[in-house]
């Protein structure tokens, strides 16, 4: 097809099958790897980077690289999380082990780069590899006179809900000088940990350590990190009038727009196919299926990183690349030293 013969390798989403369209010259998918051509072809474009969320394009790379970075971010970049819970007293209805598990999943603000890995899980914790917290809370009746007659739980009881803001940081060694409570504690203050009634009590000591997502998903620094290929939609002929609006409704909002021509005709045009979900709704209409070609560009990756909040997404990405770099460097060193 003429319209899609260009420089980039594409997959074509047809009605019942997916085919590939490769340009005549070598592409990143089949050429011999050389760092020179890699450097020439590779491009990064940052689309947005705000509120712990980042979207950027990696253009001109082989899929293995995008996948490697995704895997590194998810399970090799470290973060801090509660690993041990010492329970002195728990008279609430939530069982010890369930409570401990819930506490482990609370995201912490502490910057993992400022801590060391704990060499041995059974070793005594110290100021460089652990953070300690305390959770001491007791539920009681609310004795305030003006709220006596209320039957709302928040009026009747005190501390009936235990939130992450009730965790108290206990500095170990020189941590008091190095950190502030707001820099190491839970990222969100209102994570519900347990519900209690008068007489229920919690008395816990918690220890957070540094580890990576490979050990346990709670150590993953991201809520999610994923990539997708850039969708590209092309129209092969004019679609007018009612059909134009029908075509528009087949795609995500903003993908197709309807333009008013001078002679009063309404014509469908592709506005921006980037945010299309690649659903194949068009193929439901006999009269529209021949008007569009849906493709994806195989060396254009839209990468999205959603940070949990301890590190900014750009820092997480850089950490991931550095981890791979250092891994290669230490393996090379070993190979060279044994010869």
């Amino acid at each position, binding site marked *: 097809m003429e319209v899609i013969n260009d420089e980039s390798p594409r997959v074509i989403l047809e009605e019942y099958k997916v085919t590939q369209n490769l340009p005549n010259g070598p592409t990143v998918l089949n050429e011999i790897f050389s760092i020179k051509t890699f450097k020439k072809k*590779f491009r990064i474009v*940052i689309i947005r980077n705000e509120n712990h969320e980042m979207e*950027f394009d990696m253009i001109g790379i082989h899929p293995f690289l995008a996948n490697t970075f995704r*895997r590194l971010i998810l399970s090799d970049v470290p973060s801090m999380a509660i690993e041990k819970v010492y329970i002195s007293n728990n008279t609430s209805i939530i069982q010890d082990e369930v409570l401990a598990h819930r506490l482990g999943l609370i995201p912490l603000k502490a910057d993992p780069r400022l801590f060391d890995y704990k060499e041995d899980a059974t070793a005594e914790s110290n100021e460089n590899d652990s953070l300690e917290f305390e959770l001491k809370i007791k539920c009681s009746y609310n004795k305030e006179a003006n709220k006596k007659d209320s039957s709302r739980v928040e009026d009747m009881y005190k501390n009936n809900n235990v939130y992450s803001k009730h965790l108290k940081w206990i500095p170990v060694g020189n941590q008091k000088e190095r950190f502030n409570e707001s820099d190491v504690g839970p990222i969100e203050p209102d994570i519900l940990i347990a519900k209690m009634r008068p007489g229920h009590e919690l008395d816990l000591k918690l220890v957070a350590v540094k580890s990576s997502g490979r050990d346990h998903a709670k150590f993953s620094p991201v809520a999610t990190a994923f990539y997708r290929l850039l969708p590209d939609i092309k129209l092969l002929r004019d679609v007018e009038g009612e059909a134009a609006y029908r075509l528009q409704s087949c795609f995500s909002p903003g993908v197709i727009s309807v333009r008013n021509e001078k002679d009063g005709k309404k014509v469908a045009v592709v506005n921006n196919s980037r945010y299309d979900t690649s659903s194949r709704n068009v193929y439901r209409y006999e009269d529209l299926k021949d008007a569009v070609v849906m493709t994806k560009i195989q060396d254009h990756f839209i990468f999205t990183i959603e940070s949990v909040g301890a590190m900014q997404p750009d820092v997480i990405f850089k950490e991931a*690349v550095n981890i791979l770099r250092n*891994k*290669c460097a230490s393996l090379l060193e*070993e*190979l060279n030293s044994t*010869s």
Partner: protein
Amino acid sequence: MPIAQLSGSGVTNDTSKSKTFVFQDEGHTLGNSLRCIISSYPEVQFCGYTVPHPAESKMHFRIQMHNGKAIDALKKGLEDLMQVCDVTLEKFNEELHSS
């Protein structure tokens, strides 16, 4: 030691064209990226990797050469992957500071 080999003696002073290396504590992340780079080299006849058992953190990495030493292809692959990281960091930082 993170790299061993499956059979034969000595990791690097062996001139064998075909070899299986065993990486300790590595998995698909390194295995697949290294495989993709090394298998594109023209002097490499075959390159593949496997994680034989999910409970064992070992990765087997096989290289078979048309000519040359398998160990050299592995070294070249690691060097290339390292440079890929450098270029990525460089381009990412450039873009981060320009926007």
